[in-house]
């Protein structure tokens, strides 16, 4: 700082030159105002000196500042000037005149040049010595005391000191101001760069809503900041939004209405400040010409605050305008709008879904209901099929029942006849007894003869023998009927769905007693019962399977044949094999036989459900049903049942 303080003033050359012209002017004035004092010779000499002085000054004015400073010409010039002026004063004997004042100019210049107090002091001293010395050359020391010369000496120093002091003061001030200016320029530059770097638009409007400042970012909306200055903000706000954001129109709407800060309107040209200023006002901006081809507008979010100043005259706060920041939120708004749109769609979908759900619930109810109905229907079907199978057996069963019934009825009627005979015989015996009681030998012999005659005529031994046979046959017939009825009842009664441990051999035997009539006239039956463990199953249903397989086997026989029923244990379960030596199943329909309503029998002879239902039953028992067949050689059905069928309703 100190170094700069004493540095040469950059303008010192100009100042020097100007002051020297002034000195020259003053000298010339002296010279021309009192020419009578000087002899022409002297006058010529003085003019020459002044001319030289002027010439040197002219030369100096063409010299560059740098050169001036480089060779420190200021000092040289100063001393030359002092000598010159001293010389002029000496030559014209101007000690009594006011010419000494010119010295002051020089000293002043020296101070202005920035030489500092010391140099001013030296200049003052040199001037004093020269002035005094030259005076004493022509005058005595005594005259020195009587004249004002001595009085003038301190003034040289005084001027030197004062001018130096003021010059320094001035310089200091100048330097400080310059520094401050530089700094503020720098700050301004920073601020401008900053404002123009911010991607958001920063604006300022005056109290009328006209732009007084716009940051460079406004170019992104297609405007040049310069072109918009002085224009009203309605130039850029979308017409749709303008009434909602303009103070003029909005305040009209809110007139006489009290609003809290929360419900307070948001404004472009906001006048409120601080916490009540406009924040996050979303509106649309019309794009400028240079943004043509893009969307007609963009969404922006803006913050705006009032700007207040103080009126100098009244000292009151006055509104000077609004200042704010505008941010492009088109993308996020579009996204938001899209999301809102999506939300609405989703809500709609949701509503639809709810309706659909209800519908589905209703459907579920119906499905459940129809499932129940189907289950019922299936049970009925099972029952019908069973009854249909029995229907096929009707002839056989009727035969099987009616045969014993035939001889039963006949036998009982005959037994009645026998009883009558025995009764009449017993009656005779009683008469004989009475005769014996009366001890009438004639009557006894008569009655005895009667009995003997009756006995002879009735063939009593035959009756005696036949009655036993008759009763025995009758009982066997009753048993047969009982047995078949029991089987029939067991088999045809409605399925109770109960699973119980059952012997497969027993089931097969039971079914055989029903179908025996079908088999016995057509086939030789071979039973190969193995040792089988009890199997947990629905015996009626399994019986139905066995019945179907046996009936199929019988029907497969073209004329005569052999039907073999085998039971055995296998793979943790029991197996039933029903083989026939019949016509076999053609390979092309082998995979269809388990399909419902598939039948090869003529219409009315089969339901086409037998094997399908059998397969169902076996699957419900978690078992397997398989078929192996060769045309014209026979068919074997194999049913395997696990000992305990887990899961699966009956």
């Amino acid at each position, binding site marked *: 700082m100190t170094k700069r303080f004493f540095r040469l003033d950059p303008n010192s050359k100009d100042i020097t030159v100007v002051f020297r012209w002034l000195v020259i002017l003053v000298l010339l004035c002296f010279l021309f105002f009192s020419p009578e004092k000087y002899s022409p010779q002297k006058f010529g000499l003085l003019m020459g000196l002044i001319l030289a002085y002027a010439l040197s000054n002219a030369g100096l004015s063409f010299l560059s500042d740098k050169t001036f400073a480089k060779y420190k010409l200021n000092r040289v010039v100063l001393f030359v000037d002092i000598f010159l002026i001293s010389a002029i004063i000496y030559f014209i004997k101007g000690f009594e005149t006011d010419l000494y004042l010119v010295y002051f100019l020089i000293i002043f210049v020296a101070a202005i040049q920035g030489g500092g107090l010391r140099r001013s002091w030296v200049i003052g001293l040199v001037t004093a010595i020269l002035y005094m010395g030259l005076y004493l050359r022509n005058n005595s020391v005594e005259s020195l005391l009587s004249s004002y010369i001595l009085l003038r000496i301190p003034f040289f120093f005084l001027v030197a000191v004062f001018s130096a002091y003021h010059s320094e003061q001035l310089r200091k001030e100048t330097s400080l101001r310059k520094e401050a200016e530089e700094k503020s320029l720098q700050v301004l530059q920073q601020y401008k760069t900053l404002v123009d770097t911010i991607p958001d638009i920063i604006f300022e409007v005056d109290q009328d809503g006209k732009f007084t400042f716009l940051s460079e970012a406004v170019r992104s909306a297609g405007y040049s900041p310069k072109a918009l200055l002085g224009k009203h903000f309605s130039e850029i706000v979308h017409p749709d939004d303008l009434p909602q954001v303009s103070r003029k129109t909005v305040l009209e709407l809110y007139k006489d209405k009290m609003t809290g800060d929360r419900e307070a309107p948001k404004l472009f040209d906001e006048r409120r400040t601080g916490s009540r200023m406009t924040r996050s006002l979303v509106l649309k901006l019309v794009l400028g010409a240079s943004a043509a081809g893009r969307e007609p507008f963009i969404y922006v979010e803006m913050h705006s605050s009032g700007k207040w100043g103080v009126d100098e005259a009244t000292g009151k706060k006055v509104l000077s305008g609004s200042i704010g920041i505008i941010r492009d939120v088109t993308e996020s708004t579009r996204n938001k709008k899209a999301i809102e749109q999506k939300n609405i769609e989703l809500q709609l979908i949701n509503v639809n879904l709810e309706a659909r759900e209800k519908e589905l619930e209703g459907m579920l109810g119906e499905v459940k209901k129809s499932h129940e109905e189907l289950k019922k229907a299936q049970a009925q079907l099972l029952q019908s099929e069973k009854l249909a199978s029995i229907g096929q057996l009707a002839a056989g069963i009727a*035969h*099987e029942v009616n045969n014993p019934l035939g001889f039963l009825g006949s036998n009982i009627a005959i037994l009645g006849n026998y009883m009558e005979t025995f009764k009449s015989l017993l009656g005779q015996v009683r008469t004989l007894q009475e005769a014996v009681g009366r001890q009438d030998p004639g009557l006894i012999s008569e009655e005895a003869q009667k009995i003997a005659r009756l006995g002879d005529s009735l063939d009593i031994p035959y009756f005696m023998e036949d009655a036993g046979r008759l009763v025995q*046959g009758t009982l066997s017939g009753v048993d047969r009927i009982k047995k078949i009825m029991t089987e029939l009842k067991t088999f045809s009664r409605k399925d109770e769905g109960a699973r119980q441990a059952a012997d497969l051999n027993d089931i097969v035997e039971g079914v055989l007693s029903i179908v025996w009539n079908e088999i*016995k*006239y057509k086939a030789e039956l071979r039973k190969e019962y193995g040792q089988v463990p009890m199997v947990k199953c629905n015996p009626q249903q399994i019986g139905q399977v066995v019945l179907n397989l046996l009936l199929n086997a019988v029907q497969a026989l073209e004329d005569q044949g052999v039907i073999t029923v085998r039971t055995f244990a296998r793979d943790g379960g029991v197996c039933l094999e029903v083989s026939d030596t019949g016509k076999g199943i053609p390979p092309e329909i082998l995979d269809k036989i388990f399909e419902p309503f598939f039948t090869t029998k003529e219409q009315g002879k089969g339901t086409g459900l037998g094997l399908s239902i059998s397969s169902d039953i076996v699957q419900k028992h978690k078992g397997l049903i398989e078929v192996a067949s060769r045309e014209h050689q026979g068919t074997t059905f194999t049913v395997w049942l696990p000992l305990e069928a887990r899961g699966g309703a009956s």
Partner: protein
Amino acid sequence: MNRYKILLIDDEEEILQALSRLLRNPAYDLHCAHNAQEALALADQHGVDLVLCDYMLDKAMNGVELLRQLVKERRDVITMLMTGYMDIKIALEAINTLGVYKFILKPWDNDDLLVTIRRALEQRSLILENRRLQDELKKRELLLDRLEKEHPGITHVKRDKDGRIVLE
């Protein structure tokens, strides 16, 4: 005394026994067969007037077929078919193609069956009697023809109002 020969055919012993019991009658000569083979043999051996045959008989032959065979050689034999199950097809076949006298359903009514059999046999005896008489007549006619040939005019006898023979 000429006894009616009745052939009973059923695969069930109990049925045969019951029928035999029912038809135990000095007038009837009963023969029981358990199958077609036996039946044919018995018919050949003893002859037959009436056959009472079950429909469900045998793996080899049913009642209708057996009756057909029996009737083939014995035109006048009375046939009755028994069945435990009324199948209209069987009935039609039996009646239409065989001329079965009666179709009997099991279980039967003893009295009905007895009456039916008695009537059938009576009818048969009437037929046989008729046939015998016709044969007789034919024989007489043949005799008359021969007489006429040997003694022409002998068969044409004229009678007067009082029924006395008038010799021409």
